[in-house]
């Protein structure tokens, strides 16, 4: 009886990634297509905005910089939720999700830093300043790299899942720091203008393309995340199957000996 229960328990665990794979297979083409469409529209909208009287054409950098910065934080938040999922509910997909998200988040954070740097040079006259916002985003980037290094350093996924989750959750304190750094400290970086109390300060002609781009890049993130998760599930299957292969090979010759 207990055997049957443990077996069904295992079946549910296995069914989840399997179900995820078929779900991803069905959804991914549509998601990818939608991403392309929204990004194309957003791109077309953002190159057709008038120049800002203060910032000139560099205002166009905003249309990619802000989504990247937003995604760098969203990705970390998703990873933190996944870390909770690993630690509290031990959901097998949570660890896969966190592990797949880390490199993507690192790339978006790097892009936020790069585009911000390219925006800062003409506006502030310098590529980089060590103010609260920029520094905290740089720290976020380092944390992404640290998490990637940690997941790669341990080859046993079950063990690395827990330690990585704890590290991820500890690092989450950085997210509110990034978000509110522009309000808490006096920084060069401009304060939030899109999401704030009392409505956006941004002119609608800039706000609309920005929102479309933000949606487009968010869709891109989910597409890539789903693809990376699928890869990770496959990778784990390959590992499991290889272990089975090693065991099977052992059984092979021994049986032949018995026959002889």
């Amino acid at each position: 009886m207990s055997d049957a229960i443990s077996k069904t328990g295992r079946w549910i665990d296995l069914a989840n990634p399997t179900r995820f794979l078929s779900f991803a297979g069905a959804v991914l083409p549509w998601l990818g297509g939608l991403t392309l469409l929204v990004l194309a529209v957003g791109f077309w909208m953002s190159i057709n905005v008038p120049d800002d009287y203060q910032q000139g054409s560099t205002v166009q950098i905003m249309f990619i910089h802000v989504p990247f910065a937003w995604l760098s934080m969203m990705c970390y938040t998703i990873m933190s939720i996944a870390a909770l999922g690993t630690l509290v509910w031990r959901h097998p997909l949570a660890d896969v999700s966190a592990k797949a998200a880390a490199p993507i988040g690192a790339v978006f954070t790097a892009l936020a830093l790069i585009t911000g740097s390219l925006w800062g040079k003409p506006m502030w006259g310098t590529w980089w300043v060590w103010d609260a916002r920029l520094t905290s985003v740089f720290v976020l980037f380092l944390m992404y790299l640290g998490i990637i290094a940690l997941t790669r350093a341990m080859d046993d996924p079950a063990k690395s899942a827990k330690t990585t989750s704890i590290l991820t959750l500890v690092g989450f304190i950085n997210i509110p720091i990034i978000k509110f750094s522009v309000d808490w400290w006096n920084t060069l970086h401009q304060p939030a203008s899109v999401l704030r109390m009392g409505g956006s300060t941004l002119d609608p002609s800039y706000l609309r393309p920005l929102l479309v781009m933000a949606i487009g890049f968010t869709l891109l993130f989910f597409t890539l995340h789903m693809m990376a998760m699928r890869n990770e599930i496959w990778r784990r299957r390959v590992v499991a199957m290889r272990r089975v292969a090693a065991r099977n090979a052992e059984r092979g010759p021994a049986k032949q000996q018995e026959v002889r």
Partner: protein
Amino acid sequence: MRLVAEKLGGERGGELLFHGLDFMVSAGEALLVTGRNGSGKSTLLRIIAGLLAQAEGTLRLEGEPAAFEGLAAAAHYLGHLNAMKQVLSVHENLHFWQSFNGRGKYSIAEALERVGLGEIGHLPFGYLSTGQKRRASIARLLTSERPVWLLDEPTAGLDKASETQFAALMQEHLARGGLIVAATHLPLGLAGSKELALGAPL
């Protein structure tokens, strides 16, 4: 070709483990080094391999094939450790040692077939069981040509079937004019081998 030791003495950690050893192994012969734990079996093998200096006496290989200069160059050493990288596949590991140590009579695929690992050469070495790892390491002896085999507990971790397989490989090596020095406390299934018992009270 023969391996000659005269008045050989070996020490480990400043303590003389054995001394005054005289032995001679000719082509086609196997020498089994036996003795209790700590009697210096491994030390003797490492001295023959040139990894340790002998405390006294001489050791030489006479009439070795021209391709090999010196005892260390003519010897395969199979120690306690398998000298394989966990993350590389068995095939990659063997391929490295083959290109580093030179080609032998067998190709990698044939060697793996001979030790019964033909199916799993593509797997990372770390996935293998202890016995399989040992067999992969034995396959290394086949992929590069060396007339002298120095084997330290070669059958550790092997099951009966693999032991028989390995005995056949050793017989074949001896029949081709090779020589074997093996430290072991288990019978290796080699007919007509000499035995050298270490650990006689000094």
